[in-house]
């Protein structure tokens, strides 16, 4: 349905008269207020959940999850041979897309945070690292370990990031479900407001008859109801969203270790998103009341 611009304009105009022709605070209007508040509260949580899950999925990125490391600790004279042997094994292992020995410079860069930039890596018995990138299908870790231990005695397979793969899938799913929830919340809000507006319009058939008697147009009558419901939905949603934000601000912070649970908050510009909940609720109420009003006014004609 295309929003009716004339009605929208009238809505934004401060016209106390139009507001007063609808009997004050009926049960249905209070119902709208409460529903909008509850739904906005839920929407803020669903948003926080979605965004946090999204952040988690991003920071545990695919690249990280797909890479593992083979570490070779061997006497200096065997290092090159064992590295070559390990690379051979890795290159013939199904499920491995790429295996690459890190250069001295790269290893030095990795160690620099601990030992400073001047560490003579070549002269020290530091293990050689091989960066392993797996395919989507992945490799059989247990089989690879057996082959490595048979052919390269100094090799250790470190696949610590692999356990994160199902978690990343779960985080992605959680983000998706969060958005599904937000959509459902919007639709449920629309349905509730439609029911409430329908009930209010039907209960006020007499008011509508009087307004028609004195020459009010359908647009004017609809506008009076639409305005009432839109403003209440906005007010309710603003309250609900504010409470939701406070609840999220009050979530105990667990620093780095808390991970997902304490990550349930908004970061940076994402704080703007929950502020959009009240206007969105008002928009949903505007559209649903408008449709309900059109239908009821048609029926009462």
């Amino acid at each position, binding site marked *: 349905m295309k929003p009716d611009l004339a009605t929208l304009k009238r809505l934004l105009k401060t016209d106390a*008269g*139009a507001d*007063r*022709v609808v*009997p*004050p605070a009926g049960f249905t209007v209070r119902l709208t207020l409460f529903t909008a508040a509850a739904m906005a509260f839920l929407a803020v949580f669903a948003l926080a959940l979605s965004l946090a899950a999204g952040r988690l999925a991003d920071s545990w990125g695919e690249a990280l999850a797909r890479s593992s490391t083979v570490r070779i600790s061997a006497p200096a004279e065997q290092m090159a041979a064992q590295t070559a042997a390990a690379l051979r094994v890795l290159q013939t292992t199904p499920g491995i897309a790429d295996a690459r020995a890190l250069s001295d410079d790269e290893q030095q860069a990795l160690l620099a945070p601990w030992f400073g930039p001047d560490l003579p890596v070549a002269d020290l018995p530091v293990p050689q690292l091989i960066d392993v990138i797996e395919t989507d299908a992945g490799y059989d870790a247990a089989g690879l370990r057996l082959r490595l231990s048979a052919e390269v005695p100094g090799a250790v397979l470190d696949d610590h990031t692999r356990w994160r793969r199902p978690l990343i899938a779960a985080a992605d799913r959680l983000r998706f479900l969060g958005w599904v929830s937000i959509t459902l919340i919007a639709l449920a809000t629309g349905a509730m407001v439609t029911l409430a507006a329908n009930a209010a319009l039907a209960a006020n058939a*007499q*008011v509508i*008859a*009087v*307004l*028609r*008697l*004195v*020459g*009010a*147009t*359908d*647009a*004017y009558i609809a506008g009076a109801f639409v305005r009432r419901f839109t403003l209440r939905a906005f007010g309710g949603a603003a309250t609900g969203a504010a409470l939701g934000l406070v609840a999220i601000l009050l979530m105990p912070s667990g620093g780095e270790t808390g991970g997902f649970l304490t990550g349930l908050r908004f970061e940076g510009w994402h704080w703007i998103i929950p502020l959009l909940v009240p206007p969105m609720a008002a928009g949903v109420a505007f559209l649903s009341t408008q449709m309900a009003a059109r239908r009821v006014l048609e029926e009462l*004609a």
Partner: protein
Amino acid sequence: MLLHNKASRKPGRGGAGVIELENVAYSYGGGELLTDISLKLAPGSFHFLTGPSGAGKTTFLKLCYGALRPTGGHLRLFDRDVTQMDRDAIALARRRIGVVHQDCQFLDHLPVDENVALPLIASGQASPDEQENLAELMTWVGLTNRAHALPPELSGGERQRAALARALILSPEVILADEPTGNVDWEMSQRLLRLLVELNRMGKTIMIATHDLSLIRAAKAQVQARVLRISQRRLQLAGADL
């Protein structure tokens, strides 16, 4: 003054009636309640509409202000056929017709003065100027001291006067009043009648549905009024016995 300021608005063009019925029929779904009704309400005319209870007086008036659409024949409001008017057009036409409903019909949650001003509010004409007119009109119908009461707190006569004031606030060309003296004593009915006669002298077209024959007799002493009677589904000119 309020009652004059818009009275110069032109009535229907070319001397045609402001409300014209041509072989109009109406049925609520069962048999026809009204059949083959033709009438031209000339601008400035004064009509009474009588007939037994249930004859269809209220129905006839509802046709005249577009609340019901004829099920047969042609009905023109201000020279426009109602079949060609959508609800918005009907709403606009209704601002030129002041209606005193049989059971008044107010918004019970708004005080009397706002109810009287409702046609102004609903047509977006509420302004300080009109505030003055409203006060004047409230005085004219003698409701100044009841302006802030709620409609359910009014007496029957006060309700009728408030309904009349509301019908007049937009300075309409036509006034259709359904039993405007239904709930009031003789004295009050004479006062209301004098108000309507005065309005007619200002050029307004008036039609009053009533079964109060004494009211009709009293009116005939003051204005030239035609008396119509609905009888056996048809509209007839009542005899001179009235």
